[in-house]
Structure formats: structure tokens, C-alpha cells
């Protein structure tokens, strides 16, 4: 008995050790690591929301030593992200494993509006959705408007002289303005600006009547009491703005988010994709990132792989319909 037990134990130990050894060996053999600095394309200009977020992620990775090769951020804001998309697509044949990109909703709208670019986002490699940014409707405190009813009345009375400032043309902010115009019977005039910061300034300086900025863009003026949020484009109220009802509560079934995701070049190898997915899962789980999410009122869980691709295709369809309704396609 004793002998057999020992043999069994011995076998088990050898087996276990062998298994451990083999995983160790195969682990080192298979784990993909970048062979040179990784190009970290930012689909927006320096200083904007996407840029700040990208630099935070880069900082976290560098600070914690999570990557053997550094990420080098490059801003490619040209053509509402068209330049960045074409750049990534161009890497498909040359070197798909060392280029990743921080992306937002222009990931859907730009290829839809510029079919000539020949971009199909279904071919891009999903890495991670790091957050979804939220939208609220804001007015200046001087307007005296405190809720949606008063807003609708005031905007209706002003007609085409009501100025809604927003970021970019035929992008997120204009889609939301269009929704408000359609569901409240308004004729607000949409005036595009180059970034959320400029839009916030227009409202704070009373040059515009309302905005649909992200909380991070409007936060400073909100804390100072210059601007007031009226309603949120989220499914439930935002913890930072408990007094702003959602449009769902107000009887308009409308929810809209801005994705903050990381995408890889088309044709990226599975091993490289797994490496980047692991890397950004670490960033997502870090206390710094979670703190940033709370502070900036970000939502949206981590999405990776096929789930992220499904999410993209679904969102693309939603944006196609919205743009079609606006006659922009």
C-alpha cells in the first residue's frame, strides 16, 4: 500500500511538475511581445478628451512597467479621423502588430460619410472598450432655465435664433441636437466648433444658448455654478448630477454614448491582439483608471474581442440610421 501510494504520489508530482513545466515553456514560447515601440495613434487633436485619455493610459502603462516596449502617441486628427483610419488600414499589409489607436464615435460616422476611403471597421482588430462617455444638455445659469419644460418653451420662442454650440459637423453633438429638435419641435441652430473646450467657453460666455457637452468638458463651469445640466442622455441618472433627469424619465426613449476604445490595425495576429487585450485589461482594472472613470462620470464596462466587434457593428447600424434621417448619407 505504502509503495503504491508513493508511486502514485510520485507520478502525480512528476505529472504536475511536467505539466507546470510544459505550460511554463509553452508560455514563454507563445507569449507575444512587441519587438519595437508601439505606435499609439490618437484619432483626435492634442488637448481634447480622447487625447487626454490616451495620454493617461500611456502614463499608467509606463508608470507600472506593463509593457516591454513604450507606446509612442501620435495625433492624427485629420478629416474627422479619416487620416487615422487610413493610416491604420495601411498597416494591414506592412506591420499590423505594432499599431493601435484610441478611437471614438467618428470610428462609425467617418467611414459612413466618406465611403471613398474604403474603410470597413469590421476588419479592424478589437482590443478594448475602456469606457463610454456620457452626454448632458447644458444651459447657462443666467438664462434662468431650470428644467426641460422651460428649455423647450424658451427654445421654441427663440426659434432659429437659439444657438446650440457643439463639436464638429455631423458628429455626436449634432446628432443629439437633431434628436432634441425633432422630439421637442424646435428649430435650434447648430454651430460647430473645433473641440469641447471651445464649446464650453461659448456657453459660459453666453455666446451660445445651450450645449450637449460631456461632463468632463463642462465640469469646471458646473462646479463654479456658471452652467446647469438639464437632462442626461443616459439610461439612469448620473451620480455626479443627481438633479438632472434622464430623457427616458422625461418620456423620450433616447440614450447616447461616446465610446472610448482601443482598436488594432486590420490583420493583426491573434497573439499580438491577445497581448494588447491583456495590457488594456490591466489598465482598465487599475485603481487610477477606475478613479478617473468615477471622476469623469464615465460608464460602460470593459468589452473585448468578439463582444467589442458586435458592439461596433450594432453602433454602426444605429449611426447609419441617424445619419440617414438627417439626410447626411
Amino acid at each position, binding site marked *: 500500500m505504502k509503495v503504491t501510494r508513493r508511486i502514485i504520489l510520485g507520478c502525480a508530482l512528476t505529472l504536475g511538475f511536467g505539466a507546470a513545466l510544459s505550460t511554463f515553456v509553452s508560455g514563454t514560447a507563445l507569449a507575444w511581445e512587441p519587438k519595437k515601440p508601439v505606435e499609439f495613434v490618437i484619432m483626435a487633436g*492634442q*488637448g*481634447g478628451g480622447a*487625447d*487626454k485619455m490616451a*495620454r*493617461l493610459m*500611456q*502614463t499608467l502603462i*509606463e*508608470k507600472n512597467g506593463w509593457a516591454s516596449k513604450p507606446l509612442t*502617441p*501620435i*495625433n*492624427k*486628427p*485629420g*478629416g*474627422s479621423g*479619416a*487620416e487615422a483610419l*487610413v*493610416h491604420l488600414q495601411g498597416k494591414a499589409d506592412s506591420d499590423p502588430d505594432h499599431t493601435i489607436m484610441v478611437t471614438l464615435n467618428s470610428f462609425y460616422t467617418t467611414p459612413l*460619410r*466618406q465611403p471613398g476611403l474604403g474603410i470597413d471597421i469590421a476588419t479592424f482588430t478589437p482590443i478594448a472598450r475602456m469606457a463610454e462617455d456620457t452626454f448632458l444638455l447644458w444651459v447657462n445659469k443666467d438664462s434662468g432655465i431650470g428644467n426641460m419644460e422651460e428649455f423647450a418653451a424658451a427654445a421654441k420662442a427663440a426659434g*432659429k*435664433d437659439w*444657438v446650440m454650440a457643439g463639436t*464638429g*459637423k*455631423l*458628429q455626436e453633438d449634432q446628432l443629439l441636437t437633431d434628436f432634441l429638435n425633432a422630439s421637442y419641435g424646435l428649430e435650434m*441652430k447648430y*454651430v*460647430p*466648433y*473645433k473641440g469641447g*473646450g*471651445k464649446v*464650453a*467657453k*461659448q456657453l*459660459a*460666455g453666453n*455666446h451660445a444658448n445651450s450645449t450637449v457637452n460631456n461632463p*468632463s468638458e463642462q*465640469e*469646471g*463651469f458646473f*462646479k*463654479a455654478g*456658471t452652467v446647469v445640466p438639464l437632462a442626461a442622455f443616459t439610461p439612469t441618472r448620473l451620480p455626479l448630477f443627481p438633479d438632472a433627469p434622464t430623457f427616458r424619465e422625461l418620456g423620450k426613449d433616447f440614450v447616447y454614448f461616446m465610446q472610448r476604445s482601443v482598436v488594432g490595425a486590420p490583420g493583426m495576429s491573434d497573439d499580438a491582439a491577445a497581448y494588447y487585450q491583456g495590457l488594456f485589461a490591466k489598465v482598465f482594472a487599475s485603481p487610477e483608471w477606475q*478613479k*478617473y472613470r468615477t*471622476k469623469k462620470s464615465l460608464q460602460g464596462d470593459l468589452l473585448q474581442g468578439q463582444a467589442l466587434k458586435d458592439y461596433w457593428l450594432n453602433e454602426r447600424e444605429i449611426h447609419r440610421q441617424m445619419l440617414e434621417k438627417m439626410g447626411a448619407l
Partner: protein
Amino acid sequence: MEIIQHLLDGFLIALTPLNLAVVIVGVVVGLFIGAMPGLGSVNGVAILLPMTFLVPPTSAIIFLAALYYGAMYGGAISSIMLGIPGASTAVATTFDGRPMALKGEADKALVGAALASFFGGTLSILLFTGFAPPLASIALDFGDAEIFALMLLAFATFVGLSGDDIPKTIFSICIGLVFSAVGLDIMSGEPRLVFFDVIGFMHGINFLVLAIGIYGIGEMLWTIEITRGESAMSKAVFSLRGILAHLKELLGTWKVATIGSLLGFFVGILPAAGATPGSLMAYGVAKLTSKNPASFGKGEVAGVVAPEAANNAASTGAMLPMLTLGIPGSPTTAILLGGMVIWGMVPGPTLFVDETEFVWGLIASLYVANFFAVLINIFFIPVFLWMLKMPFTVLAPVIFVLSLVGGFAPTQSMHDVWLMLAFGIGGYLMRKLDYPLAPAVLAIVLGPIAEPALRQSLLISNGDFTVFVTRPIAGPITVIALILLFLPLLKLIRDKVKNKKASGSA
């Protein structure tokens, strides 16, 4: 009184050994980044932001602010020594700095640039310290119509007072405006002037590409042609006596420096404008108020002092809306703002109350940074002068390589390098045909600010052009701009009438 107390507390923070060390390192790093063609404070701050996590937030922002400052000083160096704008903000410094170096007055230009930077920086920090909150509200009052009026004024200072051929100046401005229109049109959301469907045109033409092309490559070609390779070396020597002699002459430029500083500071405060338009406007105004406008562009020290005072003043000015409103006044402050968010602060109107130590530590450190920047800069002048002693056959390849690096660095795309070479050849030809180049550079800087502001104002006013004259701030600015624009026309008519009389009586 309260301000003085805060400032003293700030100095206690800024003068701790760590912060003092951080200021000195920041200034030196900034000086060299600024002196590298193509790399400016934006690149420096963006590249080094992730490194600042080793120190507490206050030290981190002090480091980046010192770097920002150092880069403003450094930008002048390659503008003067090589004729390549070291940073976008130093474009105007090339206009007269380079001719001065060619005349053998490089030391005077460098000392002038350093002292003007110090003067502009210090004056604007004093203004900042005393009047930050009320000035912040001015920034908010500037809507689209006001911004456009201001840009019109900037153009007017160049057209109206240019001693150059007016039609050629206007042609040069138009060329610059066309190039500035390339890329995405934000009002329609459509790409514009994407020549031959080359994707690189989608991001528009970075004006540094134009500036380095014209002043780096174009100037090099020009120099080679006129000297046939046997360039007269610059004979500038550096001596204490020389500096003292220059000081006397430089004291005479205090008026230009003051105007430049004030202008730079106020333009810097305005979101979207930043230091480059500020320094260009200061140059224009210096020329306008000068008794001898014809000497500008040919090596006039006031033409170096004005933009250098202005760009340092503007970099302080740009921090004002960043700290008081959470709105960046320049691309560099936009990145600093991103840093503040990462450090866990909420930029915005409440920052002065919530983060007293941070804000006043930063303000006090600006005084310290300025002091060290001017010292370090003057200390390095002999090194820079040594560069000029190289024969042009050695210097030309250096300029060529630095220009290529400068064209590539900001966007890291070869497209920009080819474009820069094309601009270099174009600039050389324009120069041969005696077209002024500065207005083209001005136009490509101001165009992207002026055009959307014009269209946004008109969209809001339903196409009514009177907004530019009826609004309380925009009105006076527009009127002054129009007067400056039509001044040469009146002159022309007056001269014609005079000539007629003269010929009539003859």
C-alpha cells in the same frame, strides 16, 4: 494684501530644493527643445508629461511650466542662428533675427531676445498676479465676432504698414490663406483641397512645415546662390564689453518691448489664439510704431525684441484661462490641462479656491523660472555663437538636416517632409521674385483661427455682417483694422494727386 500673502506662500513652495531643481532642469531642457527646429513647447510638454509622475503635482506643473518657458527662450536661438524657426512661436523672430546674424550682430540679437523674453515674461506675470480673475472674464467676453475682428487687425498691421510692395504682400497673404484652408472644413464637416486625394492633406498643412520650408530650405538655397558657397562667416564675438554696449542700445527698445508684452499677454489670454499670433502681431505693431519701418526685415533689433517679448508674455497669458476657467489658451496649455486632470485636479473656475497651494506655487515658480531662463540663456550664448563660426559649406548641410528633422518631428509623416521641400523651393523662387514671405506665414497661422470665427459669427447672426461693428468689443477693433487696411490706399491716392499737381504745374 491677500494676493501678496498668497504669493509669498507660493514662493515658499517654489523655492524648496526640489522645486528649484525642477525649475532649473525644466528651463534647460526647454531651452534645447525650443532651439531644435520643429520641436517646440507643445512637443516638449507632451513628451515629458508621463515622466512627471515621479514628483508631486505641484512640482510636476512647475517642471512643465519651466519647460514651456525655456522653450519660449530657446525658440529664438535657431531662428537667429540658422534662420529656421526653432518653434512655431519664434517665426516672427526670424524676420529680423536672421538678417542680424548675417550682419555679424548675432550676439546683439541673442542678448536682445533673452532680455526681451525676460521683460515680457516678468511683466506678464506681474499682470497675471494682480489681475487674474478680472482678466478671465475678458476671455469669456470674446466670442466669434471679437476673435475675427482681432484677426482682421492682425492682418491689417501687416498689409497697411508694410513698406513692401502692397499687391505682392496681398498675393503672399492669399497664398498663405489658400494653404491654411487645406484639410477638414469644420463648418461643413467635409475635406477641402485634398490635392490629388493624397491622404496627408487631410490633416491640413501644418504651418511649421511652411515656415521651416521657407526659412530653412528656401533661405539655405538663397544663401548658396548669393555667396556661391563662399559664404562670409559671421564675425560675431561675445564679450562682456559687447554685451554692455548692446544693453545701452537695447534699453532704447523698452517701448517696443512693453507694447509687445502687453499685446502678447492679451492675445495669449484669448482661447484659440496663443503665442504665435501674439508674436506676429507684436512684430507688426513694432514696425507700425517705428520711426524707421523700412529697416524691418533687414536686421532691426526692435524686430527681434517685440516678438520675443510677446511670445513669452503670451505663454504666461495662455495659462490664465487655463487656471481660472479651465480653458487652454494655447496647444501647450491644453496638454498641461490634461496633466492637471491626470494629477486629480478639476481645472475650472474653482481651482484658485480648491488648490491654492498648487496655483500660487506655480505662479511664484514662473518668476523663478524667468530669472533662471535669462541667466542660463545668456550663459549659453558663446556656445551658440560658436555654431555660426562654421563655414557655410558645413552649416548648410546642418541646416538641411535640421530642417528635415523639424519637418518630420511634429506629425512624424514623410508627407510633411516632401511638402516642406516643395515649400522651400517655392519660397526660394518667391524670394527671387521679391515677394515678401512673412505675410504668407502670418496667413497660414491666422487663417485657421479667422475663417471659422468669421463663419461661426455669420451663422449666428444669420449672415448679418454688422455684428463686427455693432458689438461693443468687436466694433472698435474692426474700425481700427479697417483704417489700417485703407491707410495705404489713401496714401496712394494722395501721392497720385500730388503727382498730378506737380505735373500739372510743370
